[in-house]
């Protein structure tokens, strides 16, 4: 085992401009928000983002000007509203939106995780989404060679980097996720580089006491960062719930066209305070 513990700053430098990035969690839950804020502070450009159902993580990166392209099944703030920066920049064609759908996006990750060029899924036929051509997780109609069943083959999605926020990790990159796992294991196996931000670092001996609780073994993970409150204002199961008031403030400020103020207050402050 190799020690892969590093700083947030160093880990975020693994992301290069133009990279294809995916984030762990789902909507407001266990998304790697502190890592996302660091990407904004480092001024990343032209990122392509892909995920099943992201929310504020993607919208924040879009609002900060880090993003060129989005592929997602759905991008919204659930019952709190539409994703303001996504909507604005997509309508202004400042970003390219190539809508996917949940199962095909997961299939793209699964194909990459399995080392396959593509994976078929059912459904999809008859939807105009099939006409949205895309190299990331693109679709092609195929026939099963045994039954002749018509399906959609989804091209593998191999992110340059997957960043996943978790509850516990050790300095070698062993990871324990508590509660819902979402597609985080699949994404980690699919990506070329995996960064884990963790609420807590625990000793390697703790993993050895209960290996069945290990979600990802160390050789899958390239960098570990200690990041308490790293999913804030989203939730991290067993640690904290969503701060819905904070998210409402984000939406209010964005609606007034003053998103820069949000960035100054909650993202860039760290730079000026250090």
């Amino acid at each position, binding site marked *: 085992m190799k020690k892969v513990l590093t700083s947030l700053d160093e880990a975020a430098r693994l992301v290069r401009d133009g990279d294809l990035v995916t984030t762990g969690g789902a909507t407001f*839950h266990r998304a790697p928000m502190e890592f996302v804020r660091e990407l904004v502070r480092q001024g990343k450009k032209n990122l392509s983002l892909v995920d099943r159902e992201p929310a504020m993580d993607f919208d924040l990166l879009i609002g900060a000007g880090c993003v060129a392209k989005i592929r997602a099944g759905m991008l919204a703030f659930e*019952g709190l509203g539409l994703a303001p920066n996504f909507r604005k920049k*997509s309508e202004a064609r400042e970003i390219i939106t190539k809508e996917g759908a949940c*199962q095909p996006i997961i299939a793209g990750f699964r194909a990459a995780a399995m080392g396959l060029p593509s994976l078929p899924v059912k459904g999809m036929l008859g939807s*105009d989404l099939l006409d949205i051509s895309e190299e990331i997780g693109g679709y092609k109609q195929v026939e099963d060679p045994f039954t002749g069943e018509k399906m959609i083959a989804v091209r593998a999605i191999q992110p340059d980097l997957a960043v996943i926020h978790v509850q516990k990790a050790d300095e070698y990159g062993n990871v324990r996720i508590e509660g819902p*796992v*979402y597609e985080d294991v699949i994404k980690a196996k699919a990506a070329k580089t995996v960064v884990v931000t963790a609420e807590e670092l625990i000793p390697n001996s703790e993993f050895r006491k209960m290996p069945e609780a290990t979600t990802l073994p160390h050789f899958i993970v390239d960098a570990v960062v200690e990041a308490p409150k790293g999913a804030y204002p989203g939730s991290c199961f067993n640690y904290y719930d969503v701060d819905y008031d904070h998210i409402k403030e984000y939406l209010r400020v964005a609606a007034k066209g003053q998103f820069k103020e949000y960035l100054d207050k909650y993202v860039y402050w760290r730079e000026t305070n250090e």
Partner: protein
Amino acid sequence: MNNKIEIPDLMIYAMASEIKNFETVLHGVSSPLPVLAMSVARKTHAPDMAYISGAEGVDPEVDRIYPSSFDARMNRNAVAYFGLHEAFDLAQRGELNVMFLGAAQIDRYGNTNLSVIGDIDQPKVQLPGGAASAFLMPITPKVVIWITRHSKRVFVDEVDFVTGQGYNNRAEAYKKNELVVISSLGVMNFKNSDRVMQIQSYHPGHTLDEIKENTGFDLMVAPDVAETPAPSKEIIDLIHNIDPDGVRWTEFR
């Protein structure tokens, strides 16, 4: 009935009524009404249903709902976790019985649009996206579409973009699968030979004419059309106890 029953309660009860005991049912993202409907069904006529939450809990005791339908507090007392990707695999195997989906636009064949208003390459409005719609709509034995604002802007002659597949955009094998539309005015289905939308019931306080006037295409009427059954006081109390904050109203504003 002395007090007027509120529309969310009527819709939630109608949605719950689409679930049969022992069925496997899933809800997705942004789904306060489906969460409440599944909770009502499980506590009333479908105690043995398999309840798969979008928050990944199986058979949870939902004692409160939140603005996010993936809030892990809704997994309390769950018997297991089952990821959405596993639930989608179940759907591919034909073992997911019921799914609830939304729509920004819907047409007479049941095509739904959750992608864009206007042209896909030059959208007037960028919508959030269809999530699992295009995958689940054709292959799931029963899909229930809930629409909180029954108007001509939603019930359109032609959707701007086909996100979820109506009957005219399905392979023959998937035309047998059921589609039910539950709106703020009534319950619609496609149980006729042409597989086009028809009114099955109108909510108490509303009329067939009102539904037709607020629909952008000619609606058929089922031969056995009736008033939508109203929920009992016990069921209304159950809904209000799980949702003291009124999260169910967010889609109606």
